[in-house]
């Protein structure tokens, strides 16, 4: 019973690490600001969410796991808000868009 919960927590944490790494690779590889925003905003939110929920699963039913879930909910609301604010700052200042065929 306990080992099944631990395996579930390890799986969630590994999925979170995978999304965080893919977000970092996308932040390096994509050619444009807006595509980088696409990689960073979503992958980072989902990766942190999976990792924190996995840690709360590992912790068990506790006060610390409740606080971990509160942090997860906070990240779920604030990270897209910050990404939207940055993207609006870029769009207001007419940052140039990437077109196909153009190198970085």
């Amino acid at each position, binding site marked *: 019973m306990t080992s099944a919960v631990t395996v579930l927590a390890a799986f969630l944490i590994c999925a979170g690490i995978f999304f965080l790494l893919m977000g970092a690779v996308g932040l390096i590889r994509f050619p444009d*600001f807006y595509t980088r925003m696409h990689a960073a905003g979503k992958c980072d939110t989902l990766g942190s969410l999976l990792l924190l929920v996995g*840690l709360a699963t590992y912790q068990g039913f506790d006060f610390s796991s409740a606080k971990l879930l509160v942090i997860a909910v906070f990240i779920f609301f604030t990270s897209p808000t910050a990404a939207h604010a940055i993207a609006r700052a870029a769009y207001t200042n007419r940052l140039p868009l990437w077109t196909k065929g153009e190198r970085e």
Partner: protein
Amino acid sequence: MSYTFFLITSLTILFAVLLSLYRVVAGPHIIDRIIGVNVIGTKTIAVIVLTGYLFDRVEFFIDIAFVYALINFIGTLAFARYFEQKGVENS
């Protein structure tokens, strides 16, 4: 066993932070650097919680992680609003 797992997890996230640091150093515009700093801050929250598991003091490090999440959000929002009014190209 769990100590080694959390250590490897922390080191992998720190490797992802190192990858994101390239965009902060070499970003063409200032706004690329801002998003790189935001991504690094979000990864740092996970690293702080994992450090709590490594040192067996989770309940203190969770509070630190919560305060760090607040500071990261407010700082990113302030930078975004500032450069929205000031302009991106001339910086």
